[in-house]
């Protein structure tokens, strides 16, 4: 099955070129050239992943990201012309899973997409963490009867931590295991997504009981009973 990828960029040449690269790598691209049509195309085409330029006419990429996140957990990779902190953090906080800084090369782009579309490995088993249970087959997270909705990335992050409770994961380890980075990347990815995850699963995100911070080292899964 070929994955369908929505490419949102206002630059015609770049949009077409990215499309060519994606087609060559076996994906099927669909396009939108501005923020407003992006959400429509998304509903229409139901893509498996969104490549989203931050600088868009009309509605900015950040806004588009928020609109999509309101109803879908589909992976979103931002394309940013600035490696600048503010833009990147704003995008991640709006729900983007990862980002690629322009000018990027094809291999880099495809690697990011592939990492985001890779399913959780087949051996993954259902795990319990505190009062939560995680089922990797259905991406379902339950607290008793309550159903919590996580994006695939958030699910993978939580599952990675919960599969080895009490092990401390450094940010670099999480970047490698959850995001698929082979080399050092931006640790803000981890920080921002841990915050988003906590806001969904913790009863008091200010005082986390499930995803614990280990100062100076990283994170670990704790049980709520501790």
């Amino acid at each position, binding site marked *: 099955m070929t994955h369908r990828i929505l490419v949102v960029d206002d630059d015609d040449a*770049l949009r077409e*070129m990215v499309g060519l690269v994606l087609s060559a790598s076996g994906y099927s691209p669909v396009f939108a050239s501005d923020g407003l049509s992006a959400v429509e195309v998304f509903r229409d085409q139901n893509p498996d992943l969104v490549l989203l330029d931050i600088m868009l006419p009309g509605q900015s990429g950040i806004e588009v990201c928020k609109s999509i996140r309101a109803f879908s957990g589909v992976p979103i990779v931002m394309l940013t012309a600035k490696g*600048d*902190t503010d833009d990147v953090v704003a995008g991640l906080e709006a729900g983007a899973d990862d980002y690629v800084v*322009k*000018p990027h090369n*094809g291999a880099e782009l495809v690697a990011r997409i592939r990492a985001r579309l890779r399913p959780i490995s087949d051996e993954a088993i259902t795990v319990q963490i505190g009062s939560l249970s995680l089922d990797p087959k259905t991406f379902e997270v339950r607290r008793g009867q309550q159903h919590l909705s996580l994006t695939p990335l958030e699910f993978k992050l939580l599952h990675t931590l919960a599969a080895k409770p009490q092990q401390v994961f450094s940010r670099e380890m999480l970047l490698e295991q959850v995001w698929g980075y082979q080399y050092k990347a931006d640790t803000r990815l981890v920080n921002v997504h841990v915050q988003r995850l906590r806001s969904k699963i913790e009863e008091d995100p200010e005082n986390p009981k499930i995803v614990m911070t280990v100062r100076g080292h990283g994170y670990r899964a704790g049980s709520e009973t501790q």
Partner: protein
Amino acid sequence: MISLFRRSLTARAVLTTVFLGGLSVAIIGSFLSYSLANSFYQNRLSQVLTETERAVDSVQTTIAASSLTDETALQTLLNSVVPSLEIAGGSAPRQVALLRSPGQGQLQLFQSPISQNLDLRSIPDQLRQEVRQSPGRLTYTPVSLAEGQADVPGITVGTPIAIPIAGDFELYLVYSLSAEQRALELVQNALAIGGFFLLALIAAASFFVTRRVVAPVEEAAEAAREISEGKLDKRLPEAGQDIIATLASSFNKMATSLQTQIERLDALSRMQRRFVSDVSHELRTPMTTIKLAGEVLFSNRSKLEPALSRSAELLQDQIERFDRLLSDLLEISRYDAGAIVPEFEVHDVKAVASAAIKSIEPLAKDRNTSLHLLAPEESIRAEIDARRIERLLRNLLSNAIEHGGGKDVTVEVGENLQAVAICVTDRGVGMSRNELERVFDRFWRADPARQRSVGGTGLGLAISKEDSALHRGWLQVWSKPKVGTSFRLTLPKTKDAVIANSPLPLPPRGLEA
């Protein structure tokens, strides 16, 4: 106190004025006091001499008028003389002594009549000798009299008197100068109090005058300091038409012209930096397309005929070079715009150095250069932005490999209490003094004629310098033609610390020789 004296112009002026004023007051006061005392004494002396003359006359008259027959009558007469002289003194009480000159035959019953509370010490022997040698004249000397607890000055006047039957006598009159002494003390006190108030007045006057002059100067100095610290809109108040006002207005004119110049230059350079930044940003989107397209062509070049295939290769190389240049331009324009947000974390500097070495290894192998890491066993921890420091080291290493002529390149890591240092040294062509001065300049290349092979952008060291400044560190270079070049990076262990000295020497050990 001494430091206040050095620091404050006002304190110096006031103290100097008070010192000089005090000196003058003391001199004038002493002179006044001396001449007053002298004139008091002279007045009293002439008065005393007149009174004594009168007294001697009266005694001589009394003696001549009486007909003395025996010692008893003489004694009675003389005894009556003394009290009469005591009262007839006029201005102030005096004491009287009628002493018989020594060296004459004893009188059986005679006693020298003297005033009741006269202390014979106030008639010194020397005076008595002088009196005996000057008959018919008055002889006097200043003496000190005990009066109550204190001593007061006095004058003793004496003259010889011949008395029939009894022989040679000396008449002494002792006058106290206590009234004059009191008057003099009064005047001296008045002088002292007046002098003190005069000094206080001088101090106050000099303080106000000096403040009046110094305050505007101090204000100008303060304003100049503020301007030099960057508060370009600081001005002095202009009031009046004196020299101070002229100073203020000239100062303000200078400040205004400086401000205009600086703002103009600032705006110009901001515009330029803005331009570089905008251009770089605008280039990114087309650059992405070009890069992707180039890659597609390059990866499919086997399907192209030879000339087209070679073109695709050249295109790919130059796109990569363009890409590096663009990203360096963007980085330096971010520094220029002050838009860099470093991410400080505690890292092992040795590990960062190893990572940089590992990433440059392919280039080193290409150039037959071997890289050596000299570092202590234990880890060396410092709070740094590891991504930037690794980039910096990679850049130093790539320069060392490019200019090292295939000889070994060493990376030495060291630490002291507050700093870590990394020294990258090659043993290649080295640089002249002139070249060294420009080594951190943008787009400057050591030797324009030399082939550009590694493909640096010319911005590498400029960015490295900024990276090190971001850490409040030092990036220093040592080089000698035909010996080699050494770059030493020194960073504080905690991000806000200030470094005093580097743990590693520059030039490195063994290279200077």
